[in-house]
């Protein structure tokens, strides 16, 4: 029982962490809360299937062999985010953060309506990787294979992202730009390169979330980005805006709290699980309004 709960918490929290990272990466370099992130996720889901308004989806990209399919969807997510940056956010680069945020809302609404036109509003069944629901015995617990894959993938992604930020040229420039964009530019760091890079990573992370959601639910729904976007946004706030470790920690914590509440609440209270969850969030923010890991960028010392 408790081992099962642990796997539930890790897989749910892991996905929240990946979604929150997608938002925190962009906030870090350009102080933009990208509310279109949820629609990036939804678009990556619909990229798997052919445009039609039928109730049952016909796979398009989803027919590719698994490794190619994953690469194609990650590439699609990255490309979509980079295109959105170039077309929507770049012209707004010097606008106020509020204007940028409103721009991201507008982009989100536009993308959602674009999906509605192409695919219709009804949720569609997608059968992708049907075998992954099979249970695996681990000691006393029975865990779906998919959950194990999700946990392994999340760990691999976090390690790879950490290495990329710590070791690569782009990672160094992204961290410098997140700390002080103007200073980074004075040292020759190209703003366009860093911001495009952040959007590409963020879009690829949105695609990861999309693949996991499709595999878990077997459904493509135009609205599916909204709920996870809300949780991911809360995770970035709780973690401390702009802090990547904070986003990961808070994403995991919210996933774990959600799984614990689901298992621990009495039956009558279970439908109100999210109310309890958000109450917890409010309590955390009352005690640490700056978030758990407030971007502790040292002020210049005199």
């Amino acid at each position, binding site marked *: 029982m408790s081992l099962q709960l642990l796997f539930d918490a890790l897989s749910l929290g892991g996905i929240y962490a990946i979604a929150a990272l997608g938002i925190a990466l962009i906030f870090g370099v350009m102080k933009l809360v990208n509310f279109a992130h949820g629609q990036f996720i939804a678009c990556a889901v619909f990229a798997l299937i052919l445009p039609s308004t039928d109730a049952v989806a016909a796979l398009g990209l989803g027919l590719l062999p698994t490794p190619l399919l994953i690469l194609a969807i990650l590439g699609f997510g990255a490309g979509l985010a980079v295109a959105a940056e170039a077309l929507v956010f770049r012209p707004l680069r010097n606008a106020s953060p509020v204007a940028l945020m409103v721009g991201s809302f507008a982009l989100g609404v536009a993308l959602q309506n674009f999906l509605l036109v192409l695919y219709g509003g009804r949720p569609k069944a997608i059968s992708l990787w049907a075998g992954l629901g099979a249970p695996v015995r681990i000691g006393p617990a029975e865990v779906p294979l998919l959950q194990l894959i999700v946990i392994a993938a999340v760990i691999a992604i976090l390690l790879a992202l950490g290495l990329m930020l710590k070791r690569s*040229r782009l990672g*160094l*420039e992204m*961290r*410098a730009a997140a*700390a*002080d964009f*103007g*200073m*980074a*530019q*004075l*040292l*020759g*760091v*190209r*703003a366009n390169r860093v911001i495009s890079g952040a959007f590409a990573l963020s879009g690829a992370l949105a695609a990861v979330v999309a693949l996991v959601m499709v595999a878990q639910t077997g459904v493509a729904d135009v609205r599916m980005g909204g709920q996870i976007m809300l949780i991911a946004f809360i995770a970035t706030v709780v973690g401390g805006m702009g802090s990547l470790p904070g986003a990961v920690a808070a994403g995991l914590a919210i996933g774990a709290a959600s799984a614990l509440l689901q298992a621990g609440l009495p039956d009558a209270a279970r439908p109100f699980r999210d109310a309890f969850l958000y109450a917890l969030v409010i309590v955390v923010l009352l005690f640490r309004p700056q978030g758990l890991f407030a*971007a*502790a*960028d*040292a*002020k*210049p*010392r*005199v």
Partner: protein
Amino acid sequence: MAKLGIHDLAVRYGKLTAISDLSFTVAEGERLFISGPNGAGKSSLLGAISGAVPAAHGRIEMDGDILSGLGPERIARRGLSMVPEGRRIFGGLTVQENLMVGTGIRRDRAAVADDLETAFTAFPILRTRAQAPAGALSGGQQQMLAIARALMTNPKVMLVDEPSLGLAPKVVDEVYDRLCSLQALRGLTLVIVEQSSTRAARVGGRMILMRGGRIVADGDAAGFAAADLLSEAYFGDPA
């Protein structure tokens, strides 16, 4: 030809004029101090040269090429580097990472390694603390890091804004000592904003005195201490 030429420069923030009709040239290898009271436009001048602040009017040239309008990323690539006011160290990055941020514009990998060695030799504390977060350094150490970081872009011209701000006099001595020896070693052209004209006179070089966005005097720094120009600039009738 002058290394750096400023011609009829004006900088405005909205309706506020920070600099107007400013012209001067800097020769290759020269050490030029910019001094003057608060609000004289010293930092705006450095901001305009580095591309961080847009010029409202006029042009800035380096080696005869026009810099104004290029923006900081491209100006840095032309060989002009900035040690900004308040040092603006990347506090969460390690000391060595701070030094490497500006090397992205270079293609000469081997020379980058040599320059890192030069920086570590000039500032041994940076070698000792290479893997420490830069935010944990003291103010003086951060100033040395900011200078070393600017050098890592392999500049020909370096702008230094108030390097002595908030530092103990002994530490300021050390900062200027290293700056001067690095200038000699690399053949740098230095433009330094320095509030203290006595400090500028002691270090030696040319000095421009600014007030209200204009140049009020230009000459050898040592001569200023004796002349009345300083008190005139600070306390005289507004221009």
